[in-house]
Structures are given as C-alpha cells and as structure tokens.
C-alpha cells in the first residue's frame, strides 16, 4: 500500500475527533460512566492510533531510534492508560475544563498514537505481554466496579458503575478469545 493509499484512515480519525468535540456528543458520551469509559475513551485512543500513518516517514524513522521493539510506546501508553483508569480522573474530566482538555489531548497523542507507531515494531513477546496485561486490567477493574458497594465517581450512579463493570468483564473476555484464536489459528510473521 502506498503512503497515499493510507490517507483515508487519518482523515477519518480527524473527522471523528472533531465530531466527538461537539457539545451534544460530549454531553451524551459523558453522561454515563459506561459511555465515557468504554466508548468515548476507546474512541479517542482509536483516533490517535489511526493517525499514525499520517506521521511523515522521516519523523517516524527518527522516533523509532528511541523505540526499540516498541518498548517506549508500551511504557508511555501504559502510564497514560493508568492515569485515565483512576476514578478520580474520570470524575474530574466531566467537571473540570482543564481535565477535559487533558483527556482530549493525551488519549489520542500520548496513548493511541504511540501505540499506532510502536505496534508494527513490537515482537511477539512484547505484544503478548501488552495484550495479556490489557485483558487482566479489564478483569481487575471490571470486578472492582462490579462489587464496589460505594460509588467510585461522584458524578455517576451506582447502577451505571456496575454496568460498566459487567461490560469490562465481557470486553476482557472477548479480547482473550481473540488472542486465543490468533494463537491457535493465526499466522505469524517470521521475525
């Protein structure tokens, strides 16, 4: 595929980003914990991931010198992910304007984009560790949100929190099935 052939994806990502900034979209997606955590945040990460092909070859090559095997990408993405897993951050992102800005900037640029740039450079082991940790995180957080008798966010309702927990268990399970299927029947590059 030529560089020009890859352009539609970044353009789509940019369009999606602008659409998500619109007040009605924000109001809807930030009105419930489930939508913010499991739709809005993943979409913002996806925007960054899809932007990766738009990064000029020269810059990508330069960054790669600091990103052997995609390790730096994984470290950065994990830390930013950790930050947005704090119930406190989810709360503040709805009420504090500067935290909302931080969300819309950091999730695409410091989580999605590094993953998009680093993923092709990651070997089997790094990808495996990353995916297994992702699955474990969904299970751990899902379980916490499901059983917590107190509200973890002041801005969201308890039944919403428990629904988020259930969905996280389902998502963790789906990623697990996907990884297992890939291991059993998938094709791997010889690298």
């Amino acid at each position, binding site marked *: 595929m030529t560089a020009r052939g890859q352009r539609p994806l970044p353009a789509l990502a940019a369009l999606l980003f602008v659409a998500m900034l619109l007040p009605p979209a924000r109001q809807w997606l930030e009105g419930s914990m489930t939508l913010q955590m499991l739709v809005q945040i993943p979409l913002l990460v996806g925007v960054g991931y899809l932007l990766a092909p738009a990064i000029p070859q020269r810059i990508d090559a330069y960054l790669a010198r600091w990103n052997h*095997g995609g*390790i730096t990408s994984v470290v950065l993405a994990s830390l930013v992910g950790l930050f947005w897993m704090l*119930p*406190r*951050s989810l709360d503040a992102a709805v009420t504090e304007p500067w935290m909302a800005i931080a969300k819309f900037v950091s999730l695409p640029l410091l989580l999605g984009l590094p993953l998009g740039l680093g993923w092709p450079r990651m070997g089997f082991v790094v990808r495996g560790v990353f995916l297994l940790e992702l699955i474990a995180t969904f299970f751990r957080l899902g379980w916490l949100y499901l059983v917590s008798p107190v509200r973890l966010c*002041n801005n*969201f309702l308890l039944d919403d929190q428990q629904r988020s927990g259930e969905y996280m268990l389902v998502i963790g399970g789906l990623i697990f099935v996907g990884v297992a299927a890939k291991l059993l029947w998938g094709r791997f590059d010889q690298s």
Partner: protein
Amino acid sequence: MPILRTLLASALILAIGGAVLTAATDGFHAFTSETARRLDVQRDPPPVPTVALETQSGTLINLTSLRGRWVVVDFIYTRCLTWCLALGGEFAQLQDQLAGPLADGKLVLLSISFDPAHDTPLQLGAYQQRFGGHADGWIAARPTRDADLRQLLRTFGVTVVPDTMGGYVHNAAIQIVDPQGRLVQIVDAGNPQAVAQIMRQHLAR
C-alpha cells in the same frame, strides 16, 4: 545503540509518569474524588461562603453568622427516599446525643437543601418532624439564590446528579465547620455515634 536510547527514553517516561501519578493521587492516597475532597479540607480548610439561608421558620440567616459555634452540616432534599432519610435520622439522633453542647449554643446542626425550588420552609420543617427531630439546635435551610447554591456545593465539594427516578444522587457525608467558619473535616454518614464522639473531642479541645 537503539536499545540504550530506548532504555533511556523509557526510564525518563517512567519517572515523569510516576511523578504525575503520584501528584494525581495525592501520593497514592486518593484514587477517588471523594477521598480527595476529604484530604483537601483536612490539609487546607476552606472558609465557608457568605450566603443567605432561609430556615424552616422562614427567617433569613447568613452562614457566616454561625461563627463562634461548631457547625455539623449535611446536604439534603426533602423528597429524597434514600440517603437523606438516613441523614435525617442521624441528625435527630445527634440532637439527643449532643443535647448538652447544642443547648449551650456551642454547636449547631445545619441541613442545607440543594433543591430550594421544592424545599420551602414548610417542607423543611416537616422533614425535621418526620424524624422526631425538633428545632432546638437543628436548622434546616435552603439557599435563596442559585448562585449561592452553586457556591455552597462547590466549597463543600458536594456533587448532585439526577437519578433515573426523578430524584437526585449525591455524595452524602457529614461536614464539620469549626468556630472560625472553616470546613475542617468530612466524615462518613451512617454512624451518629462516631460523629458525636468526634464532636465531643472537638468541643473538649
């Protein structure tokens, strides 16, 4: 060389990320905004705002006019069927347990409604009576202006969200204001004995 550079970059990101996470959780103490607001007031007690309140008897008082006394504050709405019922019962129990200091005027209980459109003085009085409470040392009041309500909620760190049944859900707790008019402590609701104990300690000091 790329391996060394990667190590360097990763270590740098880890250090910065660790610092950010430490700051964002108050040194890994506060993972929720509720814990954070409690830590905040203990560290740096905010002064309560100067706002007018209309009491259950229809008189206007200013929140700052309660200075010189300890004030135990909760936030309620009288149509509430969940937490505020517990809070109302708790305040009625506190009236008994802290009858002495309440009669001496060293302490006052204050329920502030965040639903002033519905909670008229009549409703507020009925709310107190529902729990066998009486007006001695327990003020139930509503803010008179929207801006005042917002300022109160902001200072006390109370978040009110509509629930799916036409009511509200809020982070119900018991807020303690010292005689200098500063919000000094926030404790869990649901345990009047513990609150009475805390207040006796404050008053003995």
